[in-house]
Structures are given as structure tokens and as C-alpha cells.
């Protein structure tokens, strides 16, 4: 708490989806790394325009699903065939057929948790405190505006050059956001 606030980055406002998409392509081509596009809804084609790779959420869901199925089968086998075998209706102590439905449900259950929690983990959420969330103008991002934010930490960032670049990309409103 030394009283001086550090700049977090430069926000550039756009009013159309096409505008922000083409601006993002320009920023990508310049080679920035610590930057992001903020939109009220996922804009089709933006991942490519930003040069993002395929999301890794699938691995978390897969891991959850495998865990669910394995745990389900092992649990039922242990309970009904190992720990307390009990003959019911002359059925086998363990059968993969009768153990399948609960294991199938557990696959889906843990796969879904994997998917949601994996998404939150990859996005580093929850994060209730963020410099952008303090900015009045930026709150329009959930309404109808589109923003490109270039962080000051980016090696290519320079106050004047970046401002010029974003203005050329068609931004109507530029602002430097404090940390």
C-alpha cells in the first residue's frame, strides 16, 4: 500500500462484433501475448482471430468420467462380492451388467464435475477481485460493448505505440486502467 497505483493495461472499446474481430486479428499479428478480448457473448471465429488453441477442458471431463466408472464398478464389486456377499434371487455376487447402470451414472456425474471444475480451473476462477471489474466503462462488457485489453506487462506494450495501434484498429474509446 504505497499509495501509487500501477497501470494494469489499456482497454479499447468497440461497438460491433466484426469490429472487435478484425482488431483482434491485427493485435494477434503484431505478436502480443498478454492481451484478451472481452465480449458479452462468445463471438464466432474469435478463437482463431486471437490465435487460441483448442481448450483443454476435455481432459478434465475425461479424467472425471474414467474415475467415475472405475469407482462405480470397484465399489459395487467390493460391497456385494467381497465385503458382504449375500445371495439375492440366485443372481451372481457381481456382474458387470447389473453394476453398469450405477457406474454409468457415476461416469456422467464425475465427468460433469470434471468439465465444470476444469473450466473454472483453466480460467482461474473464481476471482472476485480484478482491476477490470473496478472500471465503470468496462461494466458495459456484459451489456453490449466489446473490449480489447492489452496488459502493461506485455513485452511489446508501450503507451504511445499501443494506443496508436488500437486507434488504427478502429477503437472508439481508449482508456488506461489502474491496477
Amino acid at each position, binding site marked *: 500500500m504505497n499509495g501509487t497505483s500501477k497501470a494494469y493495461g489499456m482497454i479499447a472499446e468497440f461497438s*460491433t462484433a466484426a469490429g472487435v474481430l478484425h482488431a483482434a486479428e491485427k493485435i494477434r499479428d503484431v505478436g502480443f501475448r498478454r492481451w484478451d*478480448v472481452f465480449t458479452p457473448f462468445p463471438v464466432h471465429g*474469435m*478463437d482463431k482471430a486471437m490465435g487460441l488453441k483448442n481448450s483443454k477442458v476435455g481432459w478434465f471431463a475425461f479424467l472425471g468420467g474414467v474415475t467415475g466408472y472405475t469407482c462405480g464398478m470397484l465399489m459395487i464389486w467390493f460391497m456385494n462380492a467381497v465385503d*458382504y456377499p*449375500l445371495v439375492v434371487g440366485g443372481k451372481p455376487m457381481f456382474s458387470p451388467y447389473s453394476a453398469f*447402470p450405477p457406474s454409468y451414472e457415476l461416469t*456422467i456425474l464425475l465427468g460433469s464435475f470434471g468439465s*465444470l471444475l476444469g473450466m473454472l480451473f*483453466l480460467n482461474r476462477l473464481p476471482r472476485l477481485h480484478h482491476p477490470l471489474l473496478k472500471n465503470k466503462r468496462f461494466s458495459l462488457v456484459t451489456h453490449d460493448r466489446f473490449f480489447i485489453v492489452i496488459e502493461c506487462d506485455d513485452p511489446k506494450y508501450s503507451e504511445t505505440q499501443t494506443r496508436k495501434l488500437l486507434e488504427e484498429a478502429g477503437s472508439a474509446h481508449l482508456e488506461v486502467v489502474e491496477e
Partner: protein
Amino acid sequence: MAEAVGQMRVSAPPPELERIPLVANQRDIGWLSDKIAGVAEGKTPLWWWVAFVPSALLLLLLLTMITYLISTGVGVWGNNHPVMWGWPIINFVWWIGIGHAGTLISAILFLLRQRWRTAVNRAAEAMTIFAVMCAGIFPLIHIGRVWYGWWLLPLPNSNSIWPQFRSPLMWDVFAVSTYFTVSVLFWYMGLIPDLAVMRDRAKTKLRQFLYGFFALGWTGSNRHWSNYEKAYLILAGLATPLVLSVHSIVSLDFSVSQLPGWHTTIFPPYFVAGAIYSGFGMVLTLLVPLRKLCHLEEVITMRHIDVMCKVTLATGSIVGYAYATEYFIAWYSGNPYERWTFWHRVFGTYWYGGMAMLLFNAFVPQLFWIRYFRRNLIAVFLISILVNMGMWSERFVIVVGSLYQDFLPASWGQFRPTWVDVCTYLGTFGLFFTCFLLFLRFLPLIAISEVKGVTPQADPHHPLGGAKVEERIPDDE
């Protein structure tokens, strides 16, 4: 292929080929926020109180009935030998069937790229969650000694005996609890961006804190959206086999037994079709008045109602086809017990149940072939109520109709519900509508960010999205 697309030139389609827009009157995306979030903001409208007070009273009735039941015993219900399942299981199957439309709309229609789903999925998912809550109460209180309810969980009981997983009733515990949990996860995940909308619009400190807390700090970052969309796709992919499995497993509760009328292989698909049919009935019952009361006719348009009527027609016809198959097999099998049961479904003591089931499920939805009935909101509303009456009759026919006369005349009997049965059932409507009305008042009833995403303004290749006409599609390097 990608190369060829890159070279193509696009121009705005000629007006006669332009699709009917999903949001009427070319409303911009800011308008959508104002309109939808507005329902959960501002002064509580009078109609809300008019609906809420009776709902809350019915919820009180439910709590009273459950207290009475637990303190007295299951003898207060009409369940008795030979009809041991009675109304509680009918209500369980009926409510959980209603829940199926929510997941169908949110998951299956998502995978099928049905973009109209965005206007109705949130409310339908909420309906699912509340319907599954109503459903879940019944098997639990039906076990008689509710304090042993935990024996259904995979925990060793007092004699160190584990649950018996060779029984479909045990599968059902896993299916229903997974269904509830995954529905809540799916619903919540869809809500995160919209909670951020609510957070940024909130006027009071408390609302800012609560919406902000549950929005988890969502900023609309495209790096986040990228993971979010993938996670949503995977959840939809997981919820699709889930929704098909839940009612299949519920149907196995019946069809794994030997009883005529239950012991058939058609049950799983037939139950799933019926569930989706009744669910769409309930979605229409809720949304037809809601779009008017909340002034959302431009978001939930006549086109949406029209498509949902068509889904009702399709699933109703599948149900009708399943009835025909059941009757044919009952006759063709030559099994006298099977024939007896099916004859008595429509000409026995409970003929009215069988007739209502055939009339309301197989024939009434056929009216939706005619455009007039899909466009007339009063007709749609009335038919949607008949749909659910029909589906309740179907569950009645399956449960009571098969149990009251089976193989031996020694185990024949009659079933009569008591006032406690009726009041408990009515009470679940209290639970359902209380939850649903609270949802309307505090959360956006339409997925704001998803509806924004299907407007032409959201499409960077559409003139309204800012694209220059005759512009080249961005190349993929």
C-alpha cells in the same frame, strides 16, 4: 476445403431467403439485457404475488401432509395390498418425466444446433430442477420409515450390510441423484455469464455482492469463453446420454419385474418419449402465460411456440406408436395374463384412466398438425394441460392398472386414493411453483448471453454485426 471457403465472397442474402429472426424487430443486444434482466429487477408485479401466495400455501400443505404421514404411517395413503405403489410412485414418475424437457432443450437441442433453444432453455432447466425436487420427495417418503432413507446410500447399515446393486431400485437412486446434480451444474454454468450481467446492473450493495459472488468474477474474457464453450459442449454431451438413461432406468423399476403390463422390453424408449412429451407440455404451460406477463413476446416468439408444438406432436406420436405396439404384442404374444391386463386397461375398473391416456397422449397432440392450433395461444395452453393430464393417466394405468389384478385372483383388489394422497400431490405443485416464481424474481429467466449470441448483431459476418457487405470471410491460415 478450408482454402475454398477462404476464397469465397459473401454478400447479404436476398430478403426472401433471410430466415425468420429468433428475436423479433431486430432488437439490439443491449435491449435484450434490459428486457430480460428487467424481469428480475424493479418492483414486484402484482401478478407475481397473485401466483406466489397460493403456491406458498400449497407448499405449506405439502409440509403438513409429509409431517402427518411421517408421524402417523403410510396407512394414511390409499396404498394397500395389492396396489402397494399407488399415487406416490405415479407422482414420482410423472414429475421426473416433466423434468426431462429441460435437459432435452439444453443438451440435445444444443448438440443438434437448434438455435431457438436459447430463448427457452433457462426456464426449462429451472423447471427440470424443481420437477426433480418434487419427484425426489416421493420415493423417499414412500419407503415408510423415512429415517432409514440413508440405507439407499452406499453406506454400511447397522448390520454392516451394503445396498444391493442387483436391484433396479438401487440404480434409480444413482440415476435420479445424478440427474439432479448434473442438471444443477448445467444450469449454474449457463447462469455464470448472466449473473455477471445482473452484477453489473445491480443498484444495491447486497445485490452487487450476491450476484457478484455467484458470478465468480466473470469478465467475458474470450480466453474464458473458449474454455467455457468447450465445457458447455462436453456437459451437453454428457447430459444427453444422462437424460436418456434416467427415464430408462425409472422404467426398469417396472420392467425388470415379472408383472403383466410391466414386463416388456419397450419400456425404456417408451418412457423416455413420454417424459419428453410431458416435459414439453409443462414448458408450454409455463411459457405461454409467462411471455405475456413478462412482456417477452419478442424473445419467445410465435416461432418458438410453433417449434415446441411440433416437438410435442412428434413425441406424442412416438408415445401413440408405443401404445399401439404394446397392444399388438399383448394380443400377439398369446399370453392370457398380458391380454387380460391390456383389455382391462380400457374396459376394466379404471377404464377412465386408460381412455384418458389414449385420448390425451395419442390423439390430442395430433391437433398440432394443423397450423391454427399451433398459432392459437389459448389452444396451445389447453392442449399442454391435457398433455400432462394424459401423462399422469398413463402413469396411473401403468402402476395401478397392472397391480390391481395380476396372475392370481387371490391377489386382486381395488385401489382408492385418500385425501392425504390428493393433498400431497397438490402440495408438490406448491413446491414447484414457489421455487419457479422465486427463480423468476431473482434470476434472468432467459439465457441473456446465449440469446445475444444468436442475433444477427452477434455475427461478425452479418451486416448488422458490423460486417461490410461483400466482405471476404477471414482466411484460416
